[in-house]
């Protein structure tokens, strides 16, 4: 068993464990901290897949900026610990249905993937460029330009919306 395999199982176990803690634990702050662990373990799996850029962006954006924002909001709202809800409401059903549907869709596409671990390793030029900022950037600005720009417009709308909402209260 190579080091990569050992590390994969280690990171996978950490991801699942900390993700489970996020769902189970009551205190919102502990959930948030556990989410940091999930993000870091995921970043480790990305590194094992040779996607360094995605791994670093994962830590930079999620474990850094987004987590700080989460913690900030939790602290400012000072949420009281709530007991387990037993009522079956429409939104709960909707959420559960959406989760199951997403899982089914992901599982379907994962099963459809060809299992060829050395598919790109055979081409040394492709393997050397894989996952670098260069190759990711080129893909983003050529093949995936439209979705990329659409997401940036979405973010701009979100920023403007946040300013409008906050301004009306001040």
């Amino acid at each position: 068993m190579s080091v990569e395999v050992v590390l994969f199982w280690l990171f996978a176990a950490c991801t699942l464990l900390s993700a489970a803690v996020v769902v189970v634990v009551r205190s919102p702050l502990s959930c948030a901290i556990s989410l940091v662990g999930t993000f870091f373990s995921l970043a480790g799996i990305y590194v094992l897949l040779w996607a360094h850029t995605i791994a670093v962006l994962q830590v930079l954006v999620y474990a850094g900026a987004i987590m700080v924002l989460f913690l900030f909001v939790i602290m400012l709202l000072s949420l009281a610990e709530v007991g387990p809800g037993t009522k079956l409401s429409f939104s709960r059903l909707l959420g559960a249905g959406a989760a199951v549907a997403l899982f089914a869709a992901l599982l379907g596409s994962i099963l459809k993937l060809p299992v060829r671990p050395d598919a790109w390793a055979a081409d040394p030029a492709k393997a050397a460029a894989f996952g670098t900022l260069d190759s990711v950037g080129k893909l983003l600005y050529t093949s995936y330009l439209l979705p990329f720009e659409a997401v940036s417009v979405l973010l701009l709308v979100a920023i403007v919306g946040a300013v409008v909402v906050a301004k009306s209260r001040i």
Partner: protein
Amino acid sequence: MREFLDEIIRDRLGQDPASWALTQGVYLVAMMAAGIALTTFGALFAGLTSWWERRIAARMQSRVGPNRVGPQGILQFLADALKLLVKEDLISSASDRWLFRAAPYFVVAGFALTFVVLPFGYHLSATRMNVGLFYVLSVTALVVVGILISGWASNSKWALFGGIRAAAQVVSYEIPAGLVILVPVLMAGSLNLHDIIRAQGGWPWDWYLFQTPMGYAGFFILFVALLAEGNRTPFDLPEAESELVSGYNTEYSGMRFAYFFLTEFGNLWVMSAVMTTCFLGGWQVPGVSAENLARWEALHQVPGWFYLVSAAVFCAKTLLLANVVIWIRWTFPRVRVDQMMSLCWKYLVPAAMALVVLAAVTELMSFELFGEAARVQAPLFSLRGLIHFAFFAAGGLVPAVLFFRKTFRNISFVGDRVRPLSNW
């Protein structure tokens, strides 16, 4: 580091690294050794800086400072560490016990992880990561998560205020820092710290600081942003003693308290090393040109002294910058919260944004004008070299001379004698 280890396995141990059974074991041992060495370096630097900073503070305030333990008091940090180790580890009963205990480890991890990519000299770094600069920015985010948790878990109003201030400050100043770091990245065309250094030169006019106006302005924006991110004066609002007792670490004692301060002093090295890499030419030795180095590398004959001299050059620049940060701490008063925020959002962020756009346009234009030649260092006596030198003289030397003249005038105006070499 992998190539280096493979070379050792091949030449010293006489084995083929691709097929030898113990190759992975050698990697593992080497990684452990490198990790321990780098963490020890960080801790030692932080300890020595805590002594050095107190000595400088004392000098600037006409006091003596710690001078009892060891020659000139240099071993003071060992005595402090011993005291903090044996002190009781107090955890107040109202605090969130688990988070309270975990917070210092987050902070230390965010500090120690940066050493994975930081260069120390020619070919001297644990890894040569393709996304090195982004990596430094991303793992330092752990520090603020730790500070925020420590403030919350203490369950004390002073700690909470300190933690929330720290979060607001660091998240805000990450934006100008992240933007302005793109200026050297655009100029070098890489995020790898070694590539950024190699794109610069040994002499001051080859540094990115003096190559373009964007680099010159970007240096100061990055300096201010990193000061704020490291919670250094004049941006030490999260631990403002006069308002918040001691800020986020108010409830901590013993070794957990020491971890926070270890990180803070150690961050001096991290921020100075990043500045040195991005704008001050890193480990480039004056007189050794890029062609020289390329010739040595092609022949596999990089002389041994070059490793040492480049490391010395890098450390000298970094320590000098760290010293400037210490001088600033004992010179400037703390800014107010609203001043801190308006400086970031109203001035630094728009300026950094403009610099990035300008740098991108300039790079594109120089690529159009000079073609592939724009990628390599220009010799001094060429059109590009002269443009750079003119900017170096106008943008760097003139303000420096004016600043020193003004400083000397101010000192002599008060009636003090000006002694340039001994007054520091």
